């Protein structure tokens, strides 16, 4: 009998040389994280669905591979490390000494429409810093993120910074009856609807920044802090193109009027960032602050983290 070597859509086998390359890259990243004082956690690929119910958005629910176990329990394959880590650590936080620095590596599995470049299984490494409320946490985590990217991704790196809720004031203040649609238009940089509904947002669409910082209302001070963080990181990583673009994260609102049913992974509630390597519009990694995630799981700790797609980074290296 002849057996086909075909695999299901969205998964791939790495054989020989490609396996060796990924293990090497992974080894270098692990050494970097351990050198920075981060300890490894190994998480299961399978978990109950129930702890995540309250965290899921319509979009992230659609990405989950869910099924009923033989004993009737609803289970899901791991689609994202951060909430899994948070839900496992939340009940243990009282017994742990903070700050806590952890890293992980492994596969996440998400349903994606069948399209070039979109895998359903992909390999991530990531790191999280728990227990630091001030901006030294963003600084430390972003430095580690940039160090990992510059070591593995080489030149042509772009890191875009923003923060959740940056545009809430502008979106809610301009009197449109559908601020979520307006946020989506800003994220797509659609000038027509923005000019019609909120001309003050045009500057954000074009340049990534408001015409005047005070246009952001109460978020203006957050922008000031982000500018300082950007300057600090740009001095340390001159080879990386670091920009602030609040439109890129327009759908990361904080006000409940904007977040209900929003499509994006919604646990970030502070600084957010994503990195592009080379030409692809698919980011190689990203992260941010998610203090409220633990709160929703019944614990209290500030947290900042990031994840990287090792395959997308390697693709970039090989394309050079």
């Amino acid at each position, binding site marked *: 009998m002849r057996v086909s070597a075909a695999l299901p859509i969205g998964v791939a086998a790495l054989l020989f040389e490609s396996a060796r390359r990924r293990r090497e890259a992974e080894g270098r990243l692990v050494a970097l994280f351990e050198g920075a004082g981060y300890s490894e956690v190994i998480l299961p690929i399978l978990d109950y669905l129930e702890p995540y119910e309250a965290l899921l958005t319509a979009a992230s629910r659609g990405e989950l591979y869910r099924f009923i176990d033989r004993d009737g329990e609803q289970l899901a394959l791991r689609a994202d490390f951060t909430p899994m880590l948070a839900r496992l650590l939340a009940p243990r936080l009282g017994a742990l000494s903070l700050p806590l620095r952890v890293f992980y590596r492994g596969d996440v599995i998400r349903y994606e429409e069948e399209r*070039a470049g979109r895998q359903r299984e992909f390999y991530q490494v990531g790191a999280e810093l728990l227990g630091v409320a001030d901006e030294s946490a963003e600084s430390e985590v972003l430095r580690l993120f940039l160090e990992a990217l510059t070591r593995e991704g080489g030149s042509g790196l772009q890191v875009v910074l923003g923060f959740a809720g940056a545009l809430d004031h502008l979106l809610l203040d301009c009197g449109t009856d559908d601020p979520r649609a307006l946020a989506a238009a800003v994220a797509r*940089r*659609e*000038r*027509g609807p923005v000019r019609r509904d909120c001309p003050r947002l045009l500057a954000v669409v074009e340049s990534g920044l408001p015409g005047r910082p005070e246009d952001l209302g109460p978020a203006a001070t957050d922008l000031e802090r982000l500018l300082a963080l950007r300057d600090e990181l740009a001095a340390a990583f001159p080879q990386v193109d670091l920009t602030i*673009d609040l439109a890129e994260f327009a759908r990361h609102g904080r006000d409940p009027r904007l977040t209900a049913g929003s499509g994006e992974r919604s646990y970030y509630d502070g600084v957010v960032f994503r990195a*592009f390597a080379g*030409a692809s*519009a698919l980011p190689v990694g990203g992260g941010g602050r998610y203090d409220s995630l633990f709160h929703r799981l019944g614990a209290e700790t500030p947290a900042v983290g990031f994840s990287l797609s090792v395959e997308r980074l390697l693709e970039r290296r090989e394309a050079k």
Partner: protein
Amino acid sequence: MIRLALPKGRNLEVALAAFRAAGLLSGLELSGRSLLVQLPEEEIEVLSLKDWDIPVYVEHGVADFGIVGSDLLAEIDGDLLVPVRLREGRSRLSLIGRARELPAPGSQVRLATKYPNTARRMLEGRPWGAEIVELSGSIELAPLLSLAEVALDIVQTGRTLVENDLVEIETVAEVAACLVVNRASYQRHRALLNEWISRLEAAEVVA
């Protein structure tokens, strides 16, 4: 050097007219079978692609930006920036059939289309159901020859419909040619892309 993907289809003339009105791509001659044309003066390279391939090329950054119909953007659901829509060359994505009525509430029909995802979304709020028959061209023939009761397809002037005794039952979406931009390219070439967009706006060829 920045790369622009232009469609081979009906949106090509519309796109070229808009760019030229804005004083852009004046030296461009897309002739015959050339797939890749360089315009060194404007520091731009122009790719000639099939409409349906443009979103993939732009999302992967093989092209930095392109022109593509909003009908395809809605169907393919790519992660692209869409700064402006061209004013000319508008059309409609419509339900068409042999009679002017929508299928009766509770009925189950067959619907022929090139846009199965858009069709499924459209059906969500309908009191009637449909089995989607995905075709790649000459969609009008499907209701005409009873492969399907209705079709979801582009209507431009409506002349094809009239000639074939078909009618436009309902407009599902307005369709425009859109300027689309790769997310990473927008960060890298922001000044140049914003200048192009501003010139298109100043020439009043976009809305």
